[in-house]
């Protein structure tokens, strides 16, 4: 049945990768190998564009446009030839994430806790997905959590104000979990890693992969045909999108549906804060 379902869906799918694609380090495999010949000697500064924040994001070029995030909370699209700003999109946090471009959409993460899909041409948001906690959690550890000693042990202040080691973070995590205001499942996202390139067999549609502190999340714009949890793949009986209550936004837009996520150890990184620096990877199924 599965091949039949896949075939039946194909006519419904819009043209894939009609526009150029782009990703952190050139391609989905992140090889860092660009097709051009490069320049053997420096000639001149072509242009420079100033933002109000540090630019830790790596620029990505597609369709004569440069896309990049800045710590001033904006994702920008500049004309490659002139450096002129085509559009900018404001998020609620800094954007060290490097964008990935496919399907006419720009995919990236912001420290406001959201994974965004923004229209490549207009800069308008197509959909967004809340990955978990935002920068607010880091602030709350220092202030809000430590305010009521009954709910949050006073030692949180000590841990926060002093040197942090991975062990400290682990302790911090355990302590926070004892707070009554802590919401299980709302762990901070701290995925700074670059997602690996892979695709789920039987899928014939591109997907966006990125990592967060609660694991790797994978999205497709179309109805998933199988679900993978805890390392086990199983077919989904219905062709309707898998909609969970927390994904109401996607149900409204019907442009993205959640497939699966893989649990990882939280607080695997120390001193990085609730970062979402990962660059999404767009996968084109070779089939």
């Amino acid at each position, binding site marked *: 049945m599965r091949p039949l379902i896949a075939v039946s869906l194909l006519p419904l799918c819009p043209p894939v990768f009609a526009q150029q694609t782009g990703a952190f380090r*050139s391609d989905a495999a992140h090889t860092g*190998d660009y097709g051009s010949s*490069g320049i053997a000697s420096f000639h001149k*500064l072509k242009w*420079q564009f100033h933002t109000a924040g540090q630019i*830790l994001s*790596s620029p990505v070029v597609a369709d004569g446009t*440069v896309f990049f995030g800045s710590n001033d909370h904006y994702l920008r699209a500049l004309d490659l030839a002139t450096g002129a700003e085509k559009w900018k999109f404001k998020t609620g946090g800094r954007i060290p994430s490097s964008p990935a471009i496919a399907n006419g959409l720009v995919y990236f993460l912001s420290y406001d806790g959201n994974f965004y899909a923004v229209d490549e041409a207009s800069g308008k948001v197509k959909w967004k997905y809340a990955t978990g906690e935002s920068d607010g959690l880091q602030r709350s550890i220092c202030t809000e959590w430590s305010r009521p000693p009954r709910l949050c042990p006073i030692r949180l202040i000590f841990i926060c104000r002093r040197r942090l080691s991975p062990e400290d973070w682990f302790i911090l995590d355990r302590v926070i979990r004892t707070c009554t205001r802590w919401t299980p499942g709302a762990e901070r996202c701290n995925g700074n890693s670059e997602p690996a390139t892979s695709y789920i067999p039987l899928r014939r549609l591109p997907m966006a992969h990125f990592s967060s502190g609660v694991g790797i999340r994978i999205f497709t714009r179309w109805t998933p045909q199988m679900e993978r949890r805890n390392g086990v793949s199983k077919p989904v009986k219905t062709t309707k999108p898998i909609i969970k209550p927390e994904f109401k936004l996607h149900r409204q837009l019907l442009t993205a549906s959640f497939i699966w996520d893989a649990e990882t150890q939280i607080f695997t990184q120390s001193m990085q804060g609730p970062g979402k620096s990962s660059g999404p990877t767009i996968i084109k199924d070779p089939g």
Partner: protein
Amino acid sequence: VIASAAVRDDRVYFATSDTGLLNAVDGKTGALLFSIDFNHWPMFSSPGIAGNMEYLGSHQGRLLAVDLASQKLAWTFAEAAKKNGPSLTDSKGAPNYEAAFADSFYDDVVSGIQKMFTVGAILSSPAVSGDTILFGSADGNLYAIM
């Protein structure tokens, strides 16, 4: 090693974040092919390869262009922000962390890192499109050079 490696033709290129080295190793054996010393300036920027050239940024506020044929530094592009460098550079040309970090408490680590970034640290990985190299900088600029 914080930066992702670049891979081409069974060769792996990666930069180090502590010793400031750009290394090339054989992808099958791990044997070191060549290494270029950038004097302990941290490199978080993943190398980008185009033609016979390899580009990467350093915390020193410089984009480094390495000729893969000669295995030597071909040219560098220095940002305006590098003028902040002397006060954060020691007598041997290496980063002077003592000038940036007063002690090892968390608050100071953050401010120290930010102080080092004022040199115009390039953590962004360069992208190459045609004859243009693009990269972001901690000085707030996106640079396009050719």
